[in-house]
């Protein structure tokens, strides 16, 4: 198991809360929705997956997209595989996205450049992720900048 998450349930709990916030955010949500893609994030340690649908009409009112915790029926446009620890640091703004890919820490497939669209869009959420961890009582999971 990795450094930050004890199991997939804990990861789903945190990412579910985080994505709930991001996909209802009126500043970030519309920009994410504009990308019009379905992304599957495949995590290791713990092994699990999350799919974010920014292509179809959101299932819930007030959301700019739909996310699925665990396997889902949708065919993704692009997939991204990484360790849960790497993802955790990424959402703190502590991982260089170019280095992540070129060093093989993140593997991607499908319409890779479509993912590029989302990079500048999600940057403002880096400040939000530690705040959300604190709100959820997971202050111990906040990664400090060295």
């Amino acid at each position, binding site marked *: 198991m990795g450094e930050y998450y004890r199991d997939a349930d804990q990861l789903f709990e945190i990412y579910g809360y985080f994505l709930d916030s991001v996909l209802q955010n009126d500043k970030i949500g519309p*920009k994410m929705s*504009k990308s019009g893609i379905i992304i599957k994030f495949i995590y290791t340690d713990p092994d699990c997956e999350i799919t974010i649908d920014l292509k179809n009409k959101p299932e819930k009112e007030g959301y700019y997209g739909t996310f699925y915790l665990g396997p889902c029926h949708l065919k993704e446009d692009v997939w991204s595989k990484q360790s849960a620890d790497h993802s955790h640091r990424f959402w703190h703004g502590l991982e*260089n*996205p*170019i*280095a992540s*890919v*070129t*060093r093989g820490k993140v593997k*991607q497939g499908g*319409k*890779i*450049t*479509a993912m*590029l*669209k989302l*990079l*500048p*869009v999600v*940057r403002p959420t880096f400040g939000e992720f530690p705040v959300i961890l604190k709100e959820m009582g997971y202050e111990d999971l906040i990664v400090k900048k060295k």
Partner: protein
Amino acid sequence: MSGYFYRIADIDLSSGNVADYPIDHQYYRDYIGGGSLAARLFFDLVKPCIDPLSIENPLFIMTGPLVGTGFPGSSRFAVCAKSPLTGIWGESTCGGAFGVSLRKNGFDGIIIRGRASQPVVVEVFDGSITIGDATNLWGLDTYEAAQQLKEVHSDRKKLRTLTIGPAGEHRVRYASICHDRANHLGRTGMGAIMGSKNLKAIIAEGTVSLPIADEEEYKSARKTTLEAARESIVSISLNQAGTASAMEIGMMTGDIPIKNWRVGEVEELGDELGGNAIVEKILKKRKACQGCPIACKPEVKVENTKYDFGTGPGPEYETLGTFGSMLMSLDLDAISKANDLCNRLGLDSISCGATIAFIMEAREKGFYSDEQLDHLDLTWGNLDAVIELLKKISYREGFGDMAAEGSAVLAENLPEQAREFLVTIKGLELPMHDPRGFHGMGLAYMMSNRGACHLQHSVQSVEQCSVSWPEAGLEDEYTGTESEGKAKMVYISEGIGQMANAICLCHFAQWAIGLENTLAGLNAVTGFELSLEDYINIGHRSWLLKRSLNNLMGVREQDDKLPGRVLTPLDEGGTGGTIPDEALLKFEYYQIRDLDPSGIPSEPALLKADLGFLIEPLKNMNS
């Protein structure tokens, strides 16, 4: 030795004589080719103090040993001379296929001296060179001139052309040379040198086989390299979204300059001008330089708007920056039109767009009246006025005559305060990578031998982590916003980048295939049996030679500095709140590079690089 023809053509346009230049064969081993070999020949042939637009300034068109072999990314060539824009070493490189055609005539390069009495075209066919009349081409734009030449030589199906447009003819100091529409020698004003020689075009077609030292070894190296190139994430990204893919990443990292380097973020930038936007809105297809598996060049279609120009080469990342973010325009059609005009008129889109950004800010701050600007409404985002100005610059009409001198000369002619927003180093406008986000790039700009440049070294790929070359002594990862320790990274990256330019290898290709594959290809073709250390050291020799030439042209320590605008932190965006530590970067670099306090290479540094012949001239330059 192999890999070369040992032939450099020596053309004197004043007399019309064409001969072989008696080159010392050892130069090939010592300098490899491209700008590096040109710099050595420049030292041998030219007095540094000459006027760049005089007949004493030769134009060097050089290839490298891999050019034409089909090695991935190796179809490039270099054009060099003393720059009319900066007054120091000028060098520009370009892809396409002209270098291949030159080599297939049995030439490694050509030197063009003097000045023709009337417009001429240099024709390189079937291993020989003739000088033809080009009076009927003078006044045509680059595309028109190339088209006429292709019609005249319609029997030559693989004819390659280099042409200048009105900007080169009128010696605009940042005039470019156009190679078959899609490829351009933009930086440092080499088009003005052609114009000053009454040289409208150079054309070539050839069929000579290329010399390869070890055919079997070469085939194996090429196969391995092609596989590496196809699998590389760099290649995949460039193929899918072109160089514009750097827009989206740059928006995250803060790499993109906005509004003449004074705004940190425009949220729509990535969406409107990024690689995906190009693909979705205007891309028709991707094109490749000869033999390149990456194919990053955009062919676009813009029609049914006032910016209609049909189908043609589209804007690359740098032009999206200079005519987009720098001028506060998000109109892809308008930027594409400006790009098309730069191509046709023969203007470097980096220096040109950056100069216009300077003019817009100067106008905003009241340094120019509407009357001085010929009543062009040069306000932020108004590309209609910009498009009008491009024509005026190219023909040196009205205010265009002043703008044709570049932003540094414009600033010199304005009150002192205007220099606060002049963004040049050694007279060359900065390319579209913000050193506030990548401090190593700041140092690399300061020390680049052709003025601020992102392609005289490999810092962009190393510092932004597109590559990992620990075998060259580089760290695995760098943090852009740190200055300490970056000097070593810049130093090594200069050696690597100088070698890519000497080989005439595309930087993107080198990122994709890596150093070991490049070296394997070079050794197979030349038989040099270079180690990686030898390889990088030749790059250092090239850097030191060009630096010494610049010293002989007057460059000193005080010229190695960043403009004040990029030493001013931004409030927002990926670079918000950080600036390079200029003094620290420079101090560490001078130690590693062994430059004396006045910025001149020390004797031990020159001797170590086998450049002892430079010691006396450098000693004597002030006497």
